[in-house]
């Protein structure tokens, strides 16, 4: 390996990188700028104003949807973290068990499955379950269940890479000294994988908060999450209060992601990220 500090990035490559980054950020920056536009017209700058942010507080529909989305995101992220961590432990620690291949497939497939397919099939499942066992009613419960399904995959992939790099010998030493395997795992390995668990909770939280397609399919008539309300508003045309709301969400998600990144970075930065990204 050559010394990192000696390497130079060719100017052409660097300019493509900068162009790509500009492409990624320009729309978001323009959106945030528009959110402070006093004029409701998009092509007229009417001066700086925070009026649209003030209006948000009085929009009951948005507030209700936002509250539902937050409740869903917290429940889904928490459920997914438990299931995803268990799946990661099973896949890393148990070399052979019946259903291992099935579990591997079911953990990875949701990462690439188009949302419309997941949404359609899960709606059909919930409707069939309702017929058979009169549960679950479409709404909060079904949204949480379907979000747990796709979030679990992200947790497993993140925790799996972390667990693979954890040193087994410490745990073995603890067991030689008389600790039960469960106790050795909880006292030694759990703290090592804790940052991965916390950061994957944050990632699941943002993924759940963001989901439109799957929620729309499984929500049923009564319940509307925030993306569903935003989608129907956007479909009708430009509304400046959506600009304000979008800016707030983008900033909140940014804080979450930087927080998650910082947590990962603090312990085992490079390795965990690289494997996680490679598997995304």
């Amino acid at each position, binding site marked *: 390996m050559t010394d990192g500090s000696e390497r130079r990035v060719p100017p052409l490559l660097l300019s*493509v990188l900068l162009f790509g980054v500009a492409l990624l950020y320009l729309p978001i920056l323009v959106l945030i700028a528009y959110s402070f536009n006093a004029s409701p017209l*998009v092509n007229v700058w009417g001066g700086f104003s925070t009026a649209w942010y003030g209006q948000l507080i009085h929009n009951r529909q948005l507030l209700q949807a936002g509250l539902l989305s937050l409740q869903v995101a917290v429940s889904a992220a928490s459920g997914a973290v438990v299931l995803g961590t268990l799946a990661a432990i099973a896949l890393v620690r148990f070399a052979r068990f019946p259903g291992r291949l099935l579990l591997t497939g*079911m953990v990875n497939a949701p990462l*690439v499955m188009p949302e*419309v397919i997941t949404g359609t099939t899960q709606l059909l499942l919930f409707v069939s379950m309702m017929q058979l066992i009169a549960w679950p009613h479409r709404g909060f419960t079904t949204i949480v269940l379907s979000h747990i399904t796709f979030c679990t995959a992200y947790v497993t992939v993140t925790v799996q890479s972390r667990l693979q790099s954890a040193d087994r010998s410490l745990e073995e030493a603890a067991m030689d000294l008389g600790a039960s395997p469960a106790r050795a795992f909880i006292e030694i390995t759990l703290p090592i994988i804790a940052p991965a668990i916390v950061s994957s909770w944050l990632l699941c939280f943002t993924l759940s908060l963001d989901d439109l397609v799957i929620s729309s399919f499984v929500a049923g008539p009564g319940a509307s999450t925030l993306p569903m309300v935003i989608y129907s508003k956007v479909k009708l045309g430009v509304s400046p209060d959506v600009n304000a709301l979008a800016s707030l969400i983008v900033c909140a998600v940014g804080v979450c992601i930087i927080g998650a990144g910082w947590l990962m970075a603090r312990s085992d930065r490079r390795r965990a990220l690289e494997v996680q990204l490679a598997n995304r």
Partner: protein
Amino acid sequence: MKPTWRPGRWLIILPPLLFLLIFFLIPFAIALKISFAEAAPRVPPFTDVIYFTPDHHLHLALSLANYRYLLTDEVYGVAYLYSLRTAFFSTLICLALGYPMAYAIARSPKSMQGLWLLIIMLPFWTSFLLRVYALEGIIRDNGFLNSALLHLGLISHPLRIMRTTLAVYLGIIYSYLPFMVLPLFATLEKLDHTLLEAANDLGSRPARAFLDITLPLSLPGVIAGSMLVFIPAVGEFVIPSLLGGPNQLMIGRVLWDEFFGNHDWPVASAVAIAFLLLLAGPIAIYQYYNVRQIEA
């Protein structure tokens, strides 16, 4: 593995296995079943496929009408082809743009790589819907791009981008570019630079060394990134719905309309199953490379 673990193992394996079995795998079986049903004005809106007749015989009423309908009504064929073509070319453009980006990050100093990755990752986790909406603010007729170009005097009439295929391409590239860069970076970063130095010492020109060494070694990243863009892009709903017009009919939109517009669940199930079969190949390729990369 110590034998003392064994009884406890199933406490760890079973919860995720059962949950994913019920909520991820079984739904596909149900969709397959309903794709053989017929639409009916009741709740839920389709006929039973498997039922007991009054004299307690199990009856199987399979109807292939939905699949026949998919083949005869040209809307579906057109939408499948349009989706595949759009996803394919968007993936190529993402690759052309994402490869140099990933390469630049992989070649920058180690201390900078984390920062670059965070910069690429941030939009990738930011609300998808809101990013598509933000892009609309740039490309709409009176949006940022047209205002800027008109102001600079480069054009005299606003460019019409919204509701065209170009808008759908821009939407997909803008939304999925990070999905391409991240796996490419992961493989390029692991690349052994001594190989390139050796090629250089032996007189190989940089372009030649790139084609002979870098490109083949980064192939797993190229494939993983391409699949991560291609597969979801084929099924994309939000982008054609918000940026495209009536001509930008993608399969995700057809499926959505079949469910929410026509309430024809059996046809929607058949569309989903046919769609899944179409994607089985790319998903299998992705899984294969993914598992290999995890185990490497």
